[in-house]
């Protein structure tokens, strides 16, 4: 393809190329090797380091838009936590998220049940569901979880659930796992909870948000960070799993390579135009 043709290229050809490059590896995986980065190892090691049977708060702040990046890491984190027999309290601060989060939770719980480890709702985990109010909910939970969430997602009175009898406020938990797609999410949990109540935190987020949280990782406010599908895939690799994130990495690799090519091609076109103008 000549540079002249590139200059006049209809962007729909670019869309088609991206579509094919993403679809191809999903149908026929390439099996590109995957490494692991330090923030992901820290995420895994932090969870591995908490005592077995601990109470952990998991906040799944995403909706279907974040599904490809965040559901795989949520599932892997739930597996790691439940393998350590941790008891989980799960919340969701995104209005479009409760259905997806509930589905994700139950799918992992069903895996354990199928393997002969019956996870009982109310004893091993409680899903508090959605609450409107953004950061105000986080601050309210600091005064008392039951005060902020009198009922769980299923309509049960939270005070009647066996697990919740051990839960008062953030001091009842050893760790907060924040899986977030934007606002409200990890940044707000760091500002409102980690900073004010000192609850250790790890975070999984979309790739576009990850750069924003690196300062918190460096300062120690976050003890681990999973960035996007790449982070989820690395986490699966550390755990020895082959989930949807790993499957998606081939497609993401080709898409990234193509976008890099687009940057180079665009600049070649510009260089040619400048040369033509000079001559």
């Amino acid at each position: 393809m000549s540079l002249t043709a590139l200059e006049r290229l209809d962007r729909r050809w670019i869309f088609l190329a991206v579509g094919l490059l993403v679809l191809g590896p999903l149908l026929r995986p390439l099996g590109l090797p995957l490494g692991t980065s330090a923030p992901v190892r820290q995420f895994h090691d932090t969870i591995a380091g908490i005592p077995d049977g601990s109470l952990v708060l998991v906040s799944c702040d995403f909706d279907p838009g974040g599904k490809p990046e965040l559901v795989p890491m949520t599932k892997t984190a739930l597996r790691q936590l439940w393998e350590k027999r941790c008891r989980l309290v799960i919340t969701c601060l995104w209005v479009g998220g409760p259905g997806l989060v509930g589905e994700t939770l139950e799918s992992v719980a069903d895996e354990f049940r199928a393997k002969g480890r019956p996870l009982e709702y109310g004893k091993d985990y409680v899903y508090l569901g959605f609450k409107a109010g953004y950061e105000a909910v986080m601050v309210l939970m600091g005064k008392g979880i039951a005060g902020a969430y009198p009922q769980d997602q299923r309509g049960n009175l939270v005070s009647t659930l066996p697990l919740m009898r051990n839960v008062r406020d953030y001091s009842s938990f050893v760790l907060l796992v924040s899986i977030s797609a934007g606002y409200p999410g990890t940044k707000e949990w760091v500002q409102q909870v980690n900073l004010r109540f000192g609850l250790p935190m790890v975070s999984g987020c979309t790739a576009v948000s990850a750069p924003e949280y690196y300062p918190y990782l460096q300062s120690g406010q976050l003890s681990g960070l999973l960035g996007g599908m790449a982070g989820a895939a690395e986490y699966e690799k550390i755990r020895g799993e082959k989930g949807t994130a790993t499957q998606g990495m081939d497609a993401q690799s080709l898409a990234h390579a193509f976008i890099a090519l687009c940057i180079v091609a665009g600049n070649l076109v510009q260089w040619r135009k400048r040369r033509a103008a000079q001559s």
Partner: protein
Amino acid sequence: MKRELPLFLTAVIGLFMLLSFFVPHHLASVPANYLQQCAVIVVAFGYVLGGANALRVNLEGVAKRQLDWPYKLVLVVALVATVVVGLVDGRRWQDAGTTSMFLYNQLYSPMQATMFALLAFFIASAAFRAFRVRTVEAGLLAAAALIVMLGRVPVGDAITGWLPEPVRMSALQEWIMNVPQNAAKRAILMGAAMGVMATGLRVILGIERSYLGGTD
């Protein structure tokens, strides 16, 4: 009074909430907690207001046969149907097989994911069209973008696997993320935080009052 009362309330409540951040005494913390609970309730009511507003605007559009009124009708029907289905299913809306879950899984979830997926295509076309190296700074930006993009995926290490580990794509992208990117991000965050403080101060002290309407 139309302008003075809101300004007075803004100043009092704003300064009080600021005070409650520093003062843990119950004389400050109890009213502050109450105001925060009120905020949660007000936000929840906002959804009711929003729904009512959407209905009114679009029903008017349908009644007056404004441009694209069939789409407005689709919106109204979808809104009402979703609310009715939610009310019928009630608290158990998340149980398997409910109509709510059908709507959520078959309509809402795919539509959301589809819109989000458009970004992949638009990033490629934006990269081709607009990512032009015209200055040294733009060149640095492009180089960093290429390294981080390729370093975040296995392709990067597949290309540079023959190099020593500290100079492979993944290591370089890690350094870019941890050092220059972090420094710039912190600087922008600090500047933005000061901007937030300045805007908040202007609103609390009534210096910024255009939101009240009327002449200055």
